[in-house]
């Protein structure tokens, strides 16, 4: 058994182990510390695996049920980054809550267990070569994250959890139907038994699948997983859940939960495309969903008052952009991957800073959070910079990814798509800056108190943002290769 | 430069105060008065040159330099124009524009000097002056543009030598209209009736005179001289254009020109006697009319060359 396969099995087990451990730790603090250290450890493991895969060929595990190729390796990297960022900020974020006892031992333990649980579930999604297993992973993430939302059982968080659960369970049910149909579509082909659930065999026999069934299956999966990914019009749970969850959880939600669901759709895209003879049948759906998400997000951001809801809608927008890029294919698919990476980094930072601001100002209302640059150079500047990065200001990377997607649309002659895309982006830009300017500069009436930030927290703000800046201008070759090969699996090129 | 050219040039410098005299005499005749002698202007200037000066404590160096500079600028503009009718090589392409802008700078300095005194009356005059200039300048430029269009040249000499019988035959109406708009511009630029009454004594209604209320002695002499030279200059622009169809040359041209100037003086005098001064609110309309006339002339002339 090669050492990649070893890492693979370690990866699957590690989070489970940690989550059990965290149920037996003595103090809340220790749980949170375990969260930080353990997550970083897992992230490192994921990184090594990803590197190994990107260096060589796909890795298989447990008789073909687990498989890591470029696409999943890239998503693994993003997952690692997001969870590491989220976990590292956790101790700092909950520090005062531990002090004032609002985060007691039991809820801390639950938090730790769920944290690692969700991490493990997402790993299952990314590592599985079996559509059924992938679906199980998604269901598991739904359940586990649902309880992460209401670490503090307030009416708001309960309502958010309820909506999240109900909508996503319907979605997951539909996704399951889709998987059924996909499995059934192997009828005419040579695949049989458990084989017909393996992505590899589906991909291999894509040409000989029952077109009608795979189409129907894809539609059900887009709707089902799309609900989880927060594609409009299935997105409605997203702002509620984000606004109620603790900042690190929201960061993970926006940073990766959505991407994980999107990943499932991406997995099926090449299959259905090959089955339908590469006529862009499936891509069309993605493009439509993406555009709808962007426009919806834009119209809500323009009149948003709640800081975290605004960030949530911005996630909706970016998921839409990623879907649009993947749907357009070609350079846009590369851009979509690049965009996913940049968005995850930027959004985690934004949520971290927003969380601190909200704690200090004791409100979510952006009209009451003002003068942050003066009141807290670190969190204020960090928030402003991450917002600028997210709405696509050069030289942050997102500006260029959006440009690439636009360019693909224009060169393909889809001027309508290009216009709608551009309009959405502009509305978002205007809507966000309208609040960002007072948030940053308007002299504040209240006198917010910020706990002294640790050096680690400085790093957590500065490093991701500088990485985004640097990525806008220069990208290390291996990253370019990674993105290219990941996009290649979506039928993308450079 | 040929003798005729020199003659034309000097005529202005020497005779321009006389033009004022002619105008005043005409008005006197209309009014049935005996009127001041024709050379009154010369006497006034001589008297002023002999006097000392009073400077307002508010003023700065600008106020002291302005009169000299204004006179120099008007003189320069006049030099560009005067000999061009007889000297075919005089001037250079585009001297029309330099001509206009020299006068513009003169106005700029007059206005600035007026504001330098800080008196509200002079400010009043200044604000009217700039309004008139803003409207008169386009009219003048468009008129010149018509001439350039018809003659196919863009220098005074080119224009005046280019306007022969054939041009007048084909584009006569246009040119005639230009003459009229130049007349209006002249009245406005020299703040004559109906735009302003040079010998009113009510500061509230004055334009040019009120701007120089605080000037005295030699400065005022320079200003009066500059004013009459400016009047002469605009009149000669109009006259040169008006007599161009006669196709004169050499001394005949000079004679014709002087005759024309005399006629112009009488014309102005007549206008001032028979028309009342317009209210300040109405004058912009008249100037805009001049611009409109020039545009009309262009539209007529545009057919030319087709």
């Amino acid at each position, binding site marked *: 058994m090669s050492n990649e396969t070893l890492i693979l099995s370690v990866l699957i087990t590690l989070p489970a182990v940690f989550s059990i451990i965290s149920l037996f730790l003595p103090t809340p603090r220790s749980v949170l510390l375990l969260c930080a250290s353990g997550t970083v450890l897992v992230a490192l493991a994921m990184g090594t695996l990803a590197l190994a895969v990107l260096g060589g060929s796909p890795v298989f595990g447990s008789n073909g049920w687990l498989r890591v190729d470029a696409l999943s390796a890239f998503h693994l990297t993003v997952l690692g980054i997001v969870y590491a960022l989220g976990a590292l900020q956790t101790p700092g974020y909950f520090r005062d809550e531990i002090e004032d006892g609002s985060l007691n031992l039991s809820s801390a333990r639950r938090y730790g267990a769920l944290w690692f649980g969700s991490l493990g579930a997402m790993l299952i999604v990314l590592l599985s070569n079996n559509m059924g297993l992938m679906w199980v992973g998604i269901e598991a993430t739904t359940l586990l994250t649902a309880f992460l939302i209401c670490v503090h059982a307030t009416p708001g968080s309960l309502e958010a959890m309820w909506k999240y659960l109900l909508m996503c369970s319907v979605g997951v049910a539909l996704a399951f139907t889709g998987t059924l149909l996909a499995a059934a579509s192997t009828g005419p082909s040579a695949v049989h038994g458990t084989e017909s659930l393996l992505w590899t065999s589906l991909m291999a026999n894509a040409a000989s699948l029952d077109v009608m069934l795979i189409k129907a299956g894809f539609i059900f999966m887009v709707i089902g997983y799309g609900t989880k990914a927060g594609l409009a019009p299935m997105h409605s749970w997203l702002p509620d859940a984000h606004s109620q969850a603790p900042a690190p959880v929201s960061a993970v939600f926006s940073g990766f939960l959505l991407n994980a669901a999107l990943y499932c759709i991406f997995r099926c895209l090449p299959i259905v495309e090959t089955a339908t003879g590469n006529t862009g049948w499936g891509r069309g759906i993605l493009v439509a969903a993406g555009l709808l998400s962007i426009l919806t997000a834009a119209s809500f951001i323009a009149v948003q008052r709640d800081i975290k809801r605004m960030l949530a809608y911005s996630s909706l927008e970016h998921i839409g952009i990623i879907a649009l890029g993947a749907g357009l294919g070609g350079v846009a698919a590369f851009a979509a991957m690049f965009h996913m990476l940049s968005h995850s980094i930027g959004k985690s930072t934004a949520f971290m800073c927003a969380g601190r601001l909200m704690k200090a100002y004791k409100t979510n209302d952006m009209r009451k959070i003002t003068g942050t640059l003066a009141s807290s150079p670190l969190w204020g500047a960090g928030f402003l910079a991450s917002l600028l990065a997210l709405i696509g200001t050069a030289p942050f990377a997102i500006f260029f990814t959006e440009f690439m997607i636009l360019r693909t649309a224009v060169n393909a002659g889809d001027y309508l798509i290009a216009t709608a895309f551009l309009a959405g982006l502009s509305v978002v830009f205007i809507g966000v800056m309208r609040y960002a300017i007072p948030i940053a500069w308007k002299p504040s009436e209240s006198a917010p108190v910020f706990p002294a930030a640790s050096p680690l927290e400085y790093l957590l703000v500065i490093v991701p943002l500088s990485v985004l800046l640097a990525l806008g201008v220069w990208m290390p070759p291996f990253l370019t290769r990674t993105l290219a090969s990941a996009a290649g699996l979506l039928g993308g090129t450079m | 430069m040929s003798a005729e050219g020199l003659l034309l040039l000097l005529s202005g410098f020497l005779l321009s105060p006389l033009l004022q005299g002619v105008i005043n005499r005409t008005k006197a005749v209309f009014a049935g008065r005996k009127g001041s002698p024709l050379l009154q202007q010369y006497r006034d200037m001589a008297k002023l040159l002999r006097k000392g000066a009073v400077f307002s404590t508010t003023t700065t160096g600008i106020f002291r330099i302005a009169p000299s500079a204004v006179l120099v600028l008007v003189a320069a503009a006049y030099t560009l124009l005067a000999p061009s009718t007889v000297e075919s090589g005089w001037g250079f392409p*585009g001297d029309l524009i330099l001509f206009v802008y020299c006068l*513009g700078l003169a106005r700029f300095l007059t206005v600035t000097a007026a504001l330098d005194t800080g008196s509200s009356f002079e400010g009043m005059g200044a604000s009217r002056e700039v309004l008139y200039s803003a409207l008169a300048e386009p009219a003048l430029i468009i008129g010149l*543009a018509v001439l350039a269009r018809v003659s196919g040249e863009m220098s005074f000499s080119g224009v005046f030598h280019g306007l022969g019988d054939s041009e007048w035959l084909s584009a006569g109406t246009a040119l005639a209209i230009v003459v009229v708009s130049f007349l209006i511009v002249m009245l406005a630029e020299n703040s004559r009736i109906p735009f302003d009454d040079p010998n009113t004594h009510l500061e509230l209604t004055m334009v040019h005179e009120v701007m120089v209320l605080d000037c005295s002695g030699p400065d005022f002499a320079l200003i009066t001289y500059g004013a009459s030279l400016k009047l002469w200059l605009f009149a000669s622009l109009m006259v040169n254009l008006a007599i161009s169809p006669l196709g004169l040359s050499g001394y005949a041209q000079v004679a014709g020109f002087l005759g024309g100037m005399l006629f112009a003086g009488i014309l102005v005098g007549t206008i001032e006697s028979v028309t009342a001064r317009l209210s300040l609110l109405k004058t912009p309309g008249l100037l805009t009319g001049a611009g409109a006339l020039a545009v009309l002339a262009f539209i007529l002339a545009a057919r030319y060359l087709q």
Partner: protein
Amino acid sequence: MVISLLIASLSLFLAGSFLLLFLPGKYRAVRVIGPATTLSGSVSGIIASVFSFISGPVESTGFALSTPSGSFALGIDFLSALFAIPVLVISSLCAIYGIGYLKPFEESGKDTARFWSFFNLLSGSMLLVTVSRNALLFLLGWEVMAVSSFFLVMFEAGKESVRKAGWTYLVATHLGTACLLVLFSMLSSGGSMNFSDLALPDGTAFGAGVAFVLAMTGFGAKAGFVPLHVWLPEAHPSAPSNVSAVMSGVMIKTGIYGILRFLLFLGFPPAWWGWVILLTGILSGIAGVLFALAQHDIKRLLAYSSVENIGIIAIGLGLGFLGVSYRIPAMAYLGFVGAILHTLNHSVFKSLLFMGAGSVVRETGCKQLDRLGGLMKRMPSTGISFLTGSAAISGFPPLNGFISELIIYLAAFSGLTAGTGASSSAALAGLLAAGSLALTGGLALACFTRAFGIVFLGEPRSSCAENARETAGSMRFSMWFLSAACIVLGLAGPVLLEFLWPAAGFLCHGFGYYPEGVSSPLFKNTLEMVTLVSASLILGTAVLFRAKTILLSRRRVTAAPTWDCGYSSPVPSMQYTASSFAEPVIRLFGKSLGTRQSFREPGGLFPGKSSFSSETPDMYREKLYRPVFERMERLFSSLRMIQHGRVNLYILYIVAALFSLLVWKLG
């Protein structure tokens, strides 16, 4: 050699601004490092540009950017150098000016380090814009330029007005960039984004037309063409004055550069392009100067006058394009030369004027014309510089403004006198250009006699003007420098024409127009004569003035209060005010300006208090943009209803989406 100098200059700017971020509050260090960075960066950049004149165009393909088909390709040709040099010179002068200008802020404990950091970033990015040879790199520079200038505008963001201005600016510049994104996408359909490979996919006239409109909108928003100018009168007054000087003086010119540079990729220009540019120019020129005339805030006034001058530049460009389309060599060449030269000149005197306004604001602490006055005696250097600038911007000999306007006039008259082909359209263009230039000039005279006269002449209208003192040395230095430049450039007409002629040739050939008989500059003689006349004007004035002084020296010269027509005790508040000075013009054009006047007339036998006030908000902002934005906001607010909290409805959305997809894709 040249390229490495460019890279050196860019990296100097970048390194400096990065370093400065870490020195908040260390004023002594910042005061040195900030300007030093700008100067060093500019010097190497200027050397590079000058070398490029000798060595001819150079180009390099640098390393690849993170984005596919983007590369760090730098290069410099005549056009780039012509825009790069003013950028660097003005930036360094404004940096020197800034040393003195920022003193009060330092005393009030403001973070000038951030200011200097962004200032250097702005200068560097402007240089990058002019010398980049890859569309993506250009975009990078373009956006950094926008963002850094935005942060500079927000320098005094404690004020509500400044924040509003910053927002307007950001929105405007972003929408402009949006157009550019599409334009560049169209041009780069081939894949590569290096300038050498940019071209339209198919030579259809329609595609070219779309591209042209996009370029005009995208770059026009930066340049400030009416009606895209609305950000300009907001942002420039709000920024610190040396930033306003940079923005008004050189930053908005990058828009002009962009138009010239990118229209070159669109092939031979049809006549309607020229007409669009010309009419835009005429509209901008007249509207700009009228709005300027109606302002009460000196910096707003200057900002609007920038709109006017951009209009004049556009008139020149329009004539140039029409000259190309109608194949009239003189018109084409003179139009382009005039436009470029006016760009150059405007950057000189507009930054001079903003510096003057800046020192007035710094010393008196107020921007309202009607509270100033009598500053000529109190701050003579500023006053004389401002006077020079005002005369220059009104386009009078012997100053530089006249030269460029004269050349544009010559282009117009060449159109007028063109005897062949489409001459009547060319003549119409010439007439419109000449007429509107004259009107603009006349109004500019009104505007700047008002600005200078009310601020610097007469008696102080308030205590703040009363106690004004002359400004800091560094500021005086920059102003003197630029005033001298106004005169020198004004006398150097023939040289400039000679020098800029190849640029016009470059453009004409770029558009695929190779006219005959323009190898040597036309109308050189004219400009020589102009220089001669200007010189003799100065001389003559000097002589006459001297003579007069000698004459007076033997006479009794007395000083007395201004003659007040018999009124017993005049007070400063009785002076003519800016509002009253502009009133006749405003009354004439007020309708088209949307000026609001509130007038309480004195009445009764014993009149009590009476008041008059007039304000002129930007009509385009009020009538054009505000309604659109308000309507959009209403629309979005009503859209929120689709998400009113009921989970049943949300699930209905899911079901609906499922069914519509099934019907759409399987039906």
